[in-house]
């Protein structure tokens, strides 16, 4: 097919205006397909990286996905709190190695606030069982002098420009109610964590006692009228929390995980639930999977439409090219040369389209990654295409080549029928 390849290229170049439009539509389709797939796999990767080394998440009885979402991803809210003494009873189980209570609900300029114990920094693991590490400063001390200390996730510090020693105040709830500020009790930045690529980056960490302290003069989400407890007065109060949102539990031996889970479920004093993060994550993917498949299906349809456009454009141009085909036949080109010439043109346009689409995904990642990281905590990585993305690219290419055989076949028939005297 060598004799016609150069001719095919120059012929295509002479019609570059039309072909560029087709190329663009193939590029957009590839962009969509690859982008959706990329986002899907990166989001999954991010989610599965968010927690590791935690054997069970314990909370009030709701759904496993809901518990996972708010305890690990700070998405949604708890329907009920749990009593801290219930969790401490769980922690006394002989199979339990550690228990870290979590209390959520407040925020700072859109970033969630997590109240916990210093044990959180010790036991929490993400990714490949990596511990949290401080980029600057130290963890909050958890004692009275360090009551109003806060440890910032990397993204919080970066986005808001906080440094060690800076003061900040927390908002009650998600910050959507104006005036619901804990303005009387400012916190000091004691430490900034290294970036993890998990929701930790977007979280402000304070102690459970601090959470109690800022809510001393609050009831049911509003400040008690006429009652003010200053930051200093609060230190003297009983700051031992009665209730928290959930807890992360690590076991001495993973084999006991189902036994502990069952015992938590049978806990008599209040209704509790324990979920395995991995199992809850799988359940989440089951829910999200339908949406992902729908997105992928729509993208595939777009790809099909764009390839149909390719076929239509090349077919429509064929009538004007009957002269060209007759000239080629006269100088010795066989009908199969004509077939390959048309097929090569379509394949080339598809190839370039896929390449442009892939490059577009690359550029989009570069452009949108900081925003996605800041807004949703989803870290997109500039990595080589994975197997699924290669498979998508190869299928678009194969489909493009097969589709190009349609005009190729038509040209083949035409050049056989026309011979050297096209009736065009």
């Amino acid at each position, binding site marked *: 097919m060598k*004799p*016609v390849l*150069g*001719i095919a290229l*120059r*012929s295509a*170049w*002479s019609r570059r205006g039309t072909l560029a439009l087709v190329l663009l539509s193939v590029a957009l389709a590839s962009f969509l397909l690859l982008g959706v797939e990329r986002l899907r796999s990166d989001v999954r990767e991010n989610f599965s990286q968010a927690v590791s080394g935690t054997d069970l998440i314990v909370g009030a009885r709701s759904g496993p996905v809901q518990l996972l979402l708010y305890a690990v991803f700070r998405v949604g809210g708890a329907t009920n709190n749990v009593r801290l003494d219930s969790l401490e009873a769980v922690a006394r189980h002989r199979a339990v190695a550690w228990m870290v209570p979590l209390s959520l609900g407040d925020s700072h300029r859109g970033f969630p606030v997590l109240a916990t114990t210093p044990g959180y920094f010790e036991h929490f693991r993400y990714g490949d069982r990596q511990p949290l590490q401080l980029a600057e400063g130290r963890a909050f001390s958890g004692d009275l002098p360090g009551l109003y200390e806060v440890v910032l996730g990397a993204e919080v510090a970066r986005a808001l420009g906080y440094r060690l020693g800076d003061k900040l105040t927390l908002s009650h709830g998600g910050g959507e109610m104006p005036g619901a500020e804990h303005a009387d009790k400012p916190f000091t930045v004691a430490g900034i964590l290294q970036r993890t690529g998990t929701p930790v980056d977007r979280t402000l960490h304070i102690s459970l006692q601090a959470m109690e302290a800022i809510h001393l003069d609050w009831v049911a989400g509003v400040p008690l009228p006429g009652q003010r407890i200053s930051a200093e007065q609060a230190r003297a109060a009983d700051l031992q929390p009665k209730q928290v949102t959930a807890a992360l539990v690590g076991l001495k031996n993973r084999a006991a995980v189902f036994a502990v889970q069952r015992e938590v479920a049978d806990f008599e004093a209040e209704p509790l639930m324990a979920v395995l993060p991995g199992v809850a994550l799988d359940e989440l993917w089951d829910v999200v999977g339908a949406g992902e498949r729908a997105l992928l299906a729509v993208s595939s349809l777009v790809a099909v439409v764009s390839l149909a456009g390719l076929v239509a454009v090349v077919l429509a141009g064929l009538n004007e090219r009957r*002269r*060209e085909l*007759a*000239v*080629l*036949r*006269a*100088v*010795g*080109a*066989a*009908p*199969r*040369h004509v077939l390959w010439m048309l097929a090569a043109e379509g394949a080339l346009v598809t190839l370039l389209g896929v390449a442009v689409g892939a490059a577009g995904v690359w550029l989009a990642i570069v452009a949108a990654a900081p925003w996605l990281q800041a807004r949703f905590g989803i870290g997109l990585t500039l990595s080589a295409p994975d197997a699924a993305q290669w498979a998508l690219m190869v299928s678009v290419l194969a489909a493009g080549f097969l589709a190009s055989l349609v005009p190729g076949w038509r040209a083949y028939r035409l050049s056989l029928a026309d*011979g*050297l*005297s096209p009736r065009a």
Partner: protein
Amino acid sequence: MPPMVDIEGLRYRWRGAAADCLDIERLQLGAGHSVFLHGPSGSGKSTLLGLLAGVLLPSGGRVSLLGQDWSALSGARRDAFRADHVGYVFQQFNLLPYLSVRDNVLLPCRFSSRRRERASAAGGSAADAAEALLEQMGLGAPLWTRPASQLSVGQQQRVAAARALIGQPELVIADEPTSALDAALRDSFMDLLLRQCRAANSTLVFVSHDERLAALFDQSLALPQLNRAAARLAA
């Protein structure tokens, strides 16, 4: 020495047609011979050229070139045989507009290694041969790299002639190549084409209804007289 072109008992009927459009008992053309073929429109001139070039196959009888029966060859072999031995000039629109003048002349050398070798046999490359032919056709170096679409009709026909002649094919077929040219251009084109065919010892089959040109050829044939199908239709 066998005739260059040998037609024997040729019958051709277009698919779906009720009657034969060509019925030629015998026609032989020698090597280096130039033949003027004329006849009114629709008398089957282009069909006969298609049969001579092996693009069409006869419904009956035999058309052979260099002693080779076209019908005995597979489709792919026919294409290769045509590329090796036949040069073809159309009435107009002979060139691929997106190729340069020189690349248009070199097209047959892409598909036939025999033509390529014969073109470079004179010394130098096939491109040298193409340039020499263009020069002889009165097309100077500044034109060689121009896109073919920028040439005038007369220039384009001369490029087409150079392309038909490159690599010295045994048979050159010209299908009314002068009908788009004015008198002065036509005369110089005819002169160049005949001279080059003689130089390459190529058999030339030239179709036109401009009978004033007939005197320039070794032989003049009226297709309606040759074609018994036409006689039957007239009767």
